[in-house]
């Protein structure tokens, strides 16, 4: 894997050429959907010609292909947007470019970010960086694998219910899902508005910290962004971590639990006291998530109607068919499943029983977390119940696939920052991630803590 420091000596053009060569060498893993080669090289040459040197001067990166970015289509890994060329760039991409970073490609994902394995991509799955027979995780699988393979030192992803943390865990890289509202969602294909967050993958916590610092901060184009808090003096003073008991149960892979325990021991070595804590609402999180999120997905995908842009069926003979056939052809099975669930839970007469109830339960979950953060700096647990599973293993059983999100959705539903950090590997050599969940806006402190742990041998 590469770190940002590895790019400090070379020229921007050398860096970009190296990254593009590495990307082209990835013929097995399918981490990227396209290279933005021409634009990347042009930008590199321009940067080498002089001008202000930003903090990421000449550093190559990739973005999940649900970020609007120049240099290639923004497909969201769907046939719906296969030929969609964005007329503008996401705020996150703009901010990184302003610091001299160079986007060299667009990474694979589950279509519209729906999934936890990148198997739902309309263009074929991404394979796990450590074991090609296994999934990359998802939905930001391509981004995680491109960092794990050393193509780029960092990659952007979006995390709605675990889409950064889980592939980070499966590929042994650092993955950051920030506090809701930390990074502008402007220019990122929306999945679920109330839990979508923009974050990153990196090989180490310090790099992730720098990338997040650059991307974070209020954006007038996204009303839900928070004022910039990244440089605020947030420090962990309680020196206590809570180990989330229901996440360490027998239903979780024993090796995963062991690696996480070892990670906790390192935290203890740094002077943190560890106590088991309960999170009774956690077991309802998945239920809440798979009501609220599909509802928001149904709504956010309504714009893909074949009228103004995106796929339009050639078979359509009237307006009704433009809608039904274009959407039937343009969306993947998982997209359709979630649209149907969302339509159902929002339908007249069911709103109170499902959506409203889920939102009330969400408030209870938020309250439980709030109570815990009165006593603990950080909550710790695994990211996923298992290491990366086999390709095809869960594709026929959506419930089993959804269950893989059980430990990542609570922080998403509560809007809390959560990071996935490498905690070692299984006997088979598969990476295991530990998840650190912090209180609102403790993001930087979480990453600094992870950096400290990285220093512990």
């Amino acid at each position, binding site marked *: 894997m590469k770190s940002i420091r590895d790019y400090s000596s070379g020229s921007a053009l050398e860096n970009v050429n190296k990254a593009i060569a590495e990307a082209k060498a990835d013929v097995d893993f399918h981490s990227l959907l396209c290279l933005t080669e021409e634009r990347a090289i042009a930008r590199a040459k321009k940067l080498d010609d002089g001008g202000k040197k930003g903090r990421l001067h000449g550093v190559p990166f990739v973005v999940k292909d649900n970020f609007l970015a120049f240099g290639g289509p923004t497909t969201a890994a769907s046939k719906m947007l296969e030929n969609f060329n964005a007329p503008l760039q996401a705020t996150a991409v703009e901010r990184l470019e302003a610091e001299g970073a160079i986007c060299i490609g667009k990474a694979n994902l589950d279509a519209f970010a729906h999934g936890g394995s990148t198997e739902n991509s309309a263009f074929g799955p991404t394979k796990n960086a450590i074991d090609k027979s296994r999934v990359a995780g998802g939905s930001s699988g391509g981004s995680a694998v491109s960092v794990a393979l050393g193509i780029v030192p960092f990659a952007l992803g979006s995390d709605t219910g675990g889409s950064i943390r889980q592939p980070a865990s499966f590929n042994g890289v650092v993955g950051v899902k920030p506090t809701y509202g930390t990074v502008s969602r402007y220019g990122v294909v929306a999945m679920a508005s109330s839990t979508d967050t923009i974050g990153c993958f990196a090989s180490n916590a310090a790099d992730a910290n720098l990338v997040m610092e650059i991307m974070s901060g209020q954006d007038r184009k996204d*009303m*839900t962004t928070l004022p910039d808090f990244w440089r605020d003096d947030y420090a962990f003073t309680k020196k206590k971590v809570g180990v989330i008991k229901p996440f360490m149960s027998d239903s979780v892979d024993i090796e995963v639990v062991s690696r996480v325990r070892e990670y906790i021991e390192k935290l203890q070595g740094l002077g943190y006291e560890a106590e088991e804590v309960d999170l009774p609402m956690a077991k309802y999180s998945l239920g809440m998530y798979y009501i609220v999120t599909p509802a928001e997905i*149904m709504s956010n*995908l309504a714009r*893909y109607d074949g009228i*103004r842009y995106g796929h339009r069926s050639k078979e359509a003979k009237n307006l009704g068919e433009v809608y039904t056939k274009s959407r039937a052809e343009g969306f993947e099975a998982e997209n359709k499943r979630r649209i149907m669930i969302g339509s159902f839970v929002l339908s007249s007469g069911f709103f109170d029983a499902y*959506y409203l109830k889920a939102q009330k339960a969400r408030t209870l979950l938020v309250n439980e977390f709030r109570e815990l953060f009165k006593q603990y700096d950080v909550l710790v647990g695994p990211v996923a119940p298992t290491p990366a599973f086999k390709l095809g293993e869960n594709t026929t059983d959506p419930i089993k696939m959804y269950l893989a999100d059980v430990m990542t959705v609570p922080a998403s539903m509560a809007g809390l920052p959560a990071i996935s950090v490498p905690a070692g590997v299984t006997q088979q050599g598969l990476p295991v991630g530990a998840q650190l969940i912090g209180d609102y806006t403790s993001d930087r402190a979480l990453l600094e803590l992870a950096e400290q742990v990285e220093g512990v041998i």
Partner: protein
Amino acid sequence: MSVYDDYDMTIGIECHVQLATKTKLFSTADNDARDKEPNTCVTPIDFGLPGMLPVLNREAVNLAIKAGKALNAPIARVSRFDRKHYYYPDLPKGYQTTQMYQPIILAGYVDAPMDDGSIVRVRIHHAHMEEDAGKLTHFNGYSLVDLNRAGTPLIEIVSEPDIHSAAAARAYATELYRLMTYAGVTHGDLYYGNMRFDVNISVAKKGSNVLGKRTEVKNLNSFRSVERAAEYECKRQIDLLERGERMIQETRGWNDDKQITTSQRSKEDAQDYRYMPDADIPPIVLTDEEIERIQAEVPMLPGEYREKWAELGLDKSVINSLLANQNYARVITEIQEKSGDNTAKRVAHWFSSALIAEGSGSEADETPVDNVGMYVSIDDLTALAEMTEKAEISSTNAKELFNELLGGARDPRALAEKQHMLQVSDEGAIGAIVDEVLADPASATSIADIKAGKDKAIGYLVGQVMKKSKGQANPGLAQKLIREKL
């Protein structure tokens, strides 16, 4: 007694008001699409591109707060936006952003004056903010989409079913229009659909405590069509029921050429809009201070003008005609405050006759409230009124000068002098002319008549004096002198 008298009609009106903001509700696109090429007032947000997020226009919120004042309605301290889902090519996001659960304007009322002088109070259930959709133009075999109007801020004012006649429906619509334009909430250009009325109508046998099934006549954009559609629908429904047929709950359209309503779609199998909160837009949270500060900017509203002018003893018809122009109303009130009731009353009558002359009196209230092109100086108007009061100028000439002032002329005294309109009130000068007239043999008959007690005959003599003085003699003085000299 006709069969129509056996029924009561019940009407509730939903009114969409386009807000007079510079930009759209959630984007920086120009909100004034009048006479613009299709799809030129559009940003990626209005186009519903992937990854676009709404940015709430605070000016629209401020106008909604002002509308609340005009509707006598409190403003919600917390209000939110929701999404209403349906598929149509003029709706780029596949949902309309609106306020379903927590609207910004709470319950209020409108007091609408009827032609007979009575007042109809119509309660407002609530009013909410929402975005307008675009526009489709259908051709043979294809349709074109224009998104210039997509995202235009609206408030939808929902009345209670408190209206029980077509005339009251019209009175409510008219008053609502005046309130919204006076408060500066909308430009009020009815031709461009700045205000559109959806009229819900049902009929029930007199004495019944159950309302009948209703129909909704959508998208009416004049007060007259509101009235006619209500009349037509009421009669149609009664005829239907009298024939023993079943009323269907449906949406109907108004055919202005034929003056009839026609069925558009049944509401029996109502569409499910799958409303949900819009997580992209944080709640609008307002403090009492903010609301007060914004509402303090609302100028005088029609009701307040009516109250003020009641002291002037103006006719209701004069008052209504004056309210057709907010600038006139403002000027009259300013004169009333500066120079007193008499001066104001005189000016009010001038304005009123000018408005009736240009055809926008109380009868023809379809004309938009005209708030531009008013350059009359209050000082000039006051001067003209005072000259008239002091009989320095005849009332006929005063009206003429008033029209010149409206047309942009200045300084009424100079105008009067130039046109020899100033009345001569010098007794000596007029006395000389009177002597001349009385000596004229043509006056003999009139003189004889007056002496015989036919007092009206003096008119002829005064007329002669005026003629000889080229209209400049003070007629009152001339009359007095004639009497003295006879």
